[in-house]
Each structure stands twice: as C-alpha cells, then as structure tokens.
C-alpha cells in the first residue's frame, strides 16, 4: 500500500510525503526515530543554534480551542550536540533528515552551515523567522527580502547540502520573500512557520498565560492562512515546497498538496492524534486516493496557478 505514497524530494526518495517539522518531537535521536517508525517520510531536527539555549521559563505552551500557542524560545542543545543526535539517528534509520538551524545574523548562519557539512544530515533548513533583527528599512528579518536573500545566498555558497528556506507567514508579501530565497539559490521552501504571535490571558489572575507573554499559533486555526501562502508561493516559484500549518488529517494533507506542496508537515497534530498521526494520515490519504481514483500520489492534481500571484486580495 505504501508504495503508492512514495515521492521524490530534491532527488531523494521518501516513503511518505509526511514530514515531522522542526520543533516537534525532535530534541533527541529517539524522538526522530519514533516519528519515522510511525510513518513520517522525512524528519526535521529542532532548530539548532550555535550555542545551547534553555528556552523560556514557561508556560511555553497554551492550548485554546483552535490550536496551540508556543513560546518555547528556541531551546536546543546547540549545533554540536544537536548534530550528534542526528548522526545517532542516521545510524539507526534510513529516513532522510533535515537539520533545521537558526541564527540572527549571516555570520552565525555560515558558521552553523560549516558544522552541518560534517554531519550525516540530508538537508539544511534555515529557520528564517527571527523577529528581533531588522533590516535597513526597519523590517524584521523574516519579512525582509533583502535579509532573506543575503542569508540564503551566503549559506548556499558554503553548504554541501541542499538548502531549504523556512518562511514566516507574518510578512506583507510572501512572494517577495519566497522569490528572494529562490533567487539566492534556495533548493526548496518550507512554509509556514507559526502565525502571529498571539496571546491568551488568565482572567482570574489577570496575567498572560504564556511566559514570556506571546507565542506563535499552530494547529487547525492556521490552516487557511498556510494554504493561501503556499498556493501563492507555488504560483510564483519553481522550487519544491514543504507545506505545513494545521494539517491534522488526510484531507488537510490533500489540500496542502493541491495548493502546491510536494511534502506536508504534520506538527501540532501529533498532540491531537498521537505519534501515530503519520500512519493515520498516510492511510487517510490512500483512502481519498481510492475514492477519487488516483493510484499514485503524484496523480493528485494541483490548483491552477494564480495568474498574478502578488495581487491576491480583492477588497
């Protein structure tokens, strides 16, 4: 059955289009491994920084009826220990692995890239969502086509692995950012990272629930935003897209694929449906394919591309 879900991503064959995204169950080799064993076709490490980070004090997770907010604070064991976990994973599994990395300046991204070159990872993903660094126009890194171009371009020069640019949804024009990444040489795009941020308030104690106050939204609440940005990007670029944001069942995954994604991330749904979520969604995709008469994943059609991808909003 699972032969029907095989697909290729940048020349590498994966057994399922489902990807464990950065930040989910990926602090340890064993977390990556259990996800792969449960049906993820590809896994991503936690975003690694040069030095270890303990993250925020917490609460770092808040649940609301439509999804999650998180203010993890990019906790990670640092690039050295993080890559060691990946290498240990690769010794036990042939599932392709993306190493996600984070920095807030180009120099650090380059340093990290050179570390990654010596690892067993298959792909290098740049988490380009830093909200605290601004470009020369006062635009945050994640929303600045110049910064995104600069970083991707520099990393591409040094990286021995294919480079995936992970984009933030919190930008004015995703096409600007996506095409900047493409022009700079990104081999693929991954979108979307968390939306917002947002906040929740404990009305009895009159305090923000998260510590620090704000956290990015993930889960069902962001799916329509993700689909729109993926579709818009798909219409404008020629590199493959890993689509994610709120995918919880097989129908959501099909929507992502029709919007233009080659692979589909499943993050928050690990909470809703357990670590078995990958196999569950694999089955649901097959079921939809059966009902609709598609025998192979690649037969699933995509939406017609937007004619003018930038000008998307009518009134």
């Amino acid at each position, binding site marked *: 059955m699972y032969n029907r879900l095989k697909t290729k991503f940048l020349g590498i064959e994966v057994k399922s289009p489902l990807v464990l995204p950065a930040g989910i169950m990926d602090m340890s080799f064993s977390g990556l491994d259990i996800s792969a064993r449960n049906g993820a076709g590809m896994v991503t490490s936690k975003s690694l920084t040069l030095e*270890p980070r303990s993250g925020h004090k*917490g*609460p770092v997770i808040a649940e609301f*009826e439509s999804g999650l907010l998180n203010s*993890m604070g990019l*906790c990670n064991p640092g690039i050295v220990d993080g890559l060691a976990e990946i290498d240990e994973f690769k010794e036990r599994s042939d599932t392709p692995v993306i190493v996600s990395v984070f920095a807030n300046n180009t120099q650090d991204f380059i340093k990290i890239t050179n570390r990654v070159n010596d690892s067993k990872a298959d792909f290098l993903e740049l988490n380009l969502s830093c909200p605290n660094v601004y470009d020369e126009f006062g635009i945050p890194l994640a929303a600045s086509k110049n910064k995104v171009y600069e970083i991707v371009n520099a990393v591409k020069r040094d990286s021995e692995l294919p480079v995936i640019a992970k984009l933030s949804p919190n930008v004015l024009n995703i096409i600007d950012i996506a095409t900047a990444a493409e022009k700079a040489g990104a081999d693929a795009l991954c979108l979307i990272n968390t939306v917002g941020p947002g906040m929740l308030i404990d009305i009895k104690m009159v305090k923000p*629930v998260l510590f620090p106050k704000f956290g990015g939204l993930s889960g069902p609440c962001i799916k329509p935003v993700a689909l729109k940005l993926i579709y818009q990007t798909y219409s404008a670029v020629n590199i493959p897209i890993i689509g994610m944001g709120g995918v919880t069942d097989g129908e959501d995954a099909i929507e992502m694929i029709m919007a233009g994604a080659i692979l589909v991330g499943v993050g928050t749904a690990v909470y809703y449906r357990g670590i078995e979520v990958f196999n569950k969604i694999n089955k649901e995709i097959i079921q939809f394919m059966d009902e609709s008469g598609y025998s192979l994943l690649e037969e699933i059609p995509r939406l017609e591309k937007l004619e003018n991808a930038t000008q998307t909003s009518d009134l």
Partner: protein
Amino acid sequence: MNKRVTLTIAKIEHETKDIKTFTFYHKLDARPGQFIMLTDFEGGEKPFSISDCTENEFSVTVKKIGEFTTRLFSKREGDLMSFRGAYGSSFFISNTKVLLVGGGYGVPPLYFLAKRLLKAGAEVVVVNGARTEEDLLFDDKFKELNIKYINITEKGDLGKKGTSVSIAKKLLQNQLVPKPQLGNNNHPQAGAWGRENREKFDFLYAAGPEKMMKNLQKFTGDITYEFLLERYMKCAIGICGNCTVDPLGIRLCVEGPVLHKKLVEQLTEFGKYHRDASGKRIGF
C-alpha cells in the same frame, strides 16, 4: 482540549523543612502516578506528581529546589495558582500482594497509589526511606492506612540504619517479612517488620531518585514492576520532545511518567543520563 484551571490554594502543610503539600479544592480526574503542570504566571511552569486526590480535592507535595519552587514556597493559603492536567500514564492498580518503594518526593505519589490499591483490594506493603526521621514524608499518613508499612532512615534515628532499597531488597529476597503493628495512633494498621511469614510480592512500584530505582532494579528478579520516572518537561502534551527517553523515543509526559518494567529495561539512558532544558544530555 485540556482546559487550564486557576484557583486558590486551599491548604498548605509543612511536611519537612523543605517540603510542603499544597491542596486545591477541585474535582480532578486523576490516577496515581499522573502529574499536573503548575504555574503562577511569573515565569516557570513545572510538573508535580499528585500526592492525593479525593472526590473534591487534590494535593501536590513539593520540594523547594530552585526558582519556581522557592517562589511557590512564599505563597499563602488563598493565593491563586493555575494548573493544567492531570497528564501522563498511571500505575497499574493491582489487587494482589504489592510492594511500594519510595524515596524523597517520590513517596507522596505512592501514598495516592496506596490508597487506590487498597480500594481495589490489594495487600499493600510500603517501604518509605529518607535520610533522617525529619525528612521522612507522609509517615503519619501511611500509618493511618490499613497496610504493612516500613520506615527506615540512613541515619538510623528510627532504630535501624538503611535505605528503602536495602529494605526492599530483603523483602524481595524473602529475607524479611513485614507484619502489622500498632501505629502512633494506636490503630493496628501501621506496621514495623519481623522475620516470619515469608511471602512473595506480585507487583512492585517505585518512585524517587532515579539512582534509587536503578539500584532497586538489580533486585527485582522476575517480579513485574512500574517505576515513576522524571525528565525535563515543557509542553507536557507530547510535542516538544524534551522528555523523550532513549532509544525508544517514548515521551515521559504521555507514555510516562509511569513506565512498565518491559519499557524500563529497554531504556539505555535509565540511571545514566537525562536531558536538560536545552536538550543537552546530563549524567546522573
């Protein structure tokens, strides 16, 4: 959806110099071994095992150890706190002859367990170890239960010197048999120990420092057991991956904190290392 609950601290009890029990009036649907995530929204949300849970209230028993627990110790009855949970796996409720071995703040969740085991009809033997008599947790509470109960300190200020593991070893190896004895409150439930009526245990439960359980594991032979383990927890809902244990990748916040023998035996990291808030491995 797991709704957050914010409510006042109903009761604070001083257990030892650095351990307090916080009680909340709330109908919590919890099983022994499960934990809550507790916060005051001032920075820090931390896991604590449920040390008692009745129809309309529940408690956690906390050791003052760092920033959060120190701030928690400055709270008074009537102050608001917020929690989510109960989370995680729970102990199997047996109705046979069972042994509970506790150390440190691992003892209180075993009290909650003992009560539920009794309700199920089990024959419960509890070994409660501490450094000194003063550090002994829930001593009176156990004595009030209708069980065989052995308390022991490293200092020997209760009579003999020992640890909960040294006692458990003897019990498991049938060198020692607990017998009912008059307790503090002159009820016949509380017990000390003698050398008659050797029996076999059907199930072993333990909670406490991982070193202690690692030690205990040596004497378990083919008895079935469950241990309550701890790892650094952030999300407590099984997505951040901070609490996974190698090489299984299971999450102590979901598949744990109570793990069955079969799983514990497969853990290469058991008693060796855990991961800190950054995910870095730290030796025990």
